[in-house]
């Protein structure tokens, strides 16, 4: 620690410059992870925030809402199965909300209409206004983001291409699906909208897209046996089934991976070159009795101090960035991920410094006695 700090103080510019690169890398890592989180939430928060453990889809639908169609009658059958504590049907279609107030610009907003049974465990708690009510089939719960577009509780909007008019009963938080605002509506109303075209329900009774289950010990295979024509997956698998979700998060993770590799090389190469430059000095210290451990510790603690400081600055910059990013930007920083990525960056830096430590171990103390040129 002593040697490490002394040297860093003595050659400030050198270490500040490499520190800046590490700051930029960690900053980028945190921003990417924030964007990844934000995008993932935007793509699937309605799913992720649901208090369900498993999702039953139509067989062959690859856990995709859009491809799955089941009869709502299955809900009762599922409830009768062992380990199923609760079951509730759900459906999703996409539509456009058109503001009523004679808007000359024909304002339209893409929304995801999520049909659920009012009062079921799938209904999110209203942050503002009231919840769903089976007695008021056209009253809906909308995602808060619609407030930014000027909607207020009690507002009525039309659905583009239909004669239906919906009224906002209340707002909910963090409910988006496929990057657009979710609007929860009673499932009866949803059916009317979703299967307006004759025959689109394939003749199923009370059709829905999927049935959400609660119950930690549910065995998906057992359900598939009892109810042929269904496939049951965990909620996490259902999230993966959302179109574009895997590709989107995959891209972000790939970039993060590259950044980790880059930071490993930056730290590794920089300290390697530095160590090579100092090999004469290390040789002298070895000649006067320094052990490999003493010098290795000096290198490692230097890497540790530098990376820790850079990561800390990176976190500060990220918080600053988060504060100035426009509201609509899908950016969400989660403390747990910041901690995980900080530790990963730190671990990578320390690991790549082992190359330098190996170099130190190999330096011959005889160098000091003016023998080797």
């Amino acid at each position, binding site marked *: 620690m002593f040697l490490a700090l002394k040297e860093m103080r003595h*050659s400030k510019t050198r270490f500040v410059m490499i520190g800046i690169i590490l700051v930029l890398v960690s900053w980028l890592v945190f921003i990417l992870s924030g964007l990844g989180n934000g995008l993932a939430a935007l793509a699937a928060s309605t799913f992720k925030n649901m208090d369900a453990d498993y999702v039953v889809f139509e067989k062959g639908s690859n856990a995709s809402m859009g491809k799955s169609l089941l009869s709502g009658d299955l809900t009762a059958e599922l409830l009768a199965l062992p380990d199923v504590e609760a079951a509730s049907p759900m459906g999703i279609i996409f539509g456009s909300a058109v503001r009523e107030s004679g808007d000359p610009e024909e304002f339209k907003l893409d929304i995801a209409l999520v049909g659920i049974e009012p009062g079921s465990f799938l209904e999110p708690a209203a942050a503002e206004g009231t919840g769903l009510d089976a007695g008021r089939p056209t009253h809906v719960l909308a995602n808060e983001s619609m407030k930014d577009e000027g909607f207020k509780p009690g507002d009525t909007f039309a659905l583009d291409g239909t004669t239906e008019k919906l009224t906002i009963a209340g707002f909910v938080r963090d409910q988006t699906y496929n990057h657009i605002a979710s609007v929860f509506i009673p499932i009866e109303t949803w059916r009317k909208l979703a299967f307006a075209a004759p025959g689109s329900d394939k003749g199923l009774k009370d059709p829905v897209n999927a049935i959400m289950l609660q119950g930690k010990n549910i065995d998906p295979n057992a359900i598939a046996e009892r109810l042929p024509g269904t496939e049951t997956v965990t909620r996490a698998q259902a999230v993966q089934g959302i179109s574009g979700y895997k590709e989107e998060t995959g891209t972000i993770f790939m970039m993060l991976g590259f950044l980790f590799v880059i930071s490993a090389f930056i730290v590794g190469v920089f300290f390697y070159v530095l160590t090579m430059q100092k090999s004469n000095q290390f040789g*002298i210290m070895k*000649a*006067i*009795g320094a052990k490999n451990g003493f010098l290795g510790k000096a290198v490692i603690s230097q890497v540790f101090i530098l990376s820790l400081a850079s990561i800390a600055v990176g976190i500060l910059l990220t918080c600053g960035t988060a504060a100035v990013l426009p509201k609509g930007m899908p950016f969400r920083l989660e403390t747990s991920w910041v901690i995980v990525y900080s530790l990963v960056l730190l671990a990578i830096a320390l690991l790549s410094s082992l190359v330098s430590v190996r170099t130190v171990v190999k330096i011959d103390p005889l160098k*000091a006695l003016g023998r080797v040129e």
Partner: protein
Amino acid sequence: MTQGLEMRSVSKFYDAGSERITALDRVSIRVEPGEFVAVVGPSGSGKTTFLSIAGALLKPSEGEVLLNGKNIASLPDKQLSDIRLREVGFIMQASNLVPYLNVLEQLLVVKRMTGKVTPADKAFAAELLADLGLAERMKHYPEELSGGEKQRVAIARALMNDPGIILADEPTASLDTRRAHEVVSLIARAVKSRRKAAVMVTHDERLLSYCDRICRMEDGKLSPMEPAAGSVLS
């Protein structure tokens, strides 16, 4: 237990391709505490090799090396570095100070290698530096020192762990005559007052008057010489 340095018929061979180079050929020498021995000889005769073996930097191919009565000829590397730290003080050619440590820290880092630095260590370091006329330079960095001052810091550093043996390999190589005299006289004084067994390799015959004994190295063979014979040295 015998103090000081003793070598008994030490040889060192290097394998260069198919050839075997004999860098040291059955060298025997005894240096008592308080004795200052000079080693002279032509380039490539084996002086540095001799010093490296005496200082536990290099293992001999044959023979015994006794530091304060302990045979170090076949100790493992880890113990050798410990011997170097505690028993041997090296004074090397110029520019062997750590560039980012000030003069006081140059000495204290030696203590750090053994563990903690105590206030007594600091006092001892300050005393050593004062002894060598560096009291005013304690907070200076090597780049701010003259060549002679740097070598004086190196002397102080060699004395810091209170070793039994001081080894100097051409300590005046980068100094002008006046500074060279200054530095060697300081080494001689420290050797006498602190009772160290000291060996200095040098090319400069004018410095031999500071030494008690002179040995000549030639083709790996070490032979004693009379101090008065300084004028016939290489």
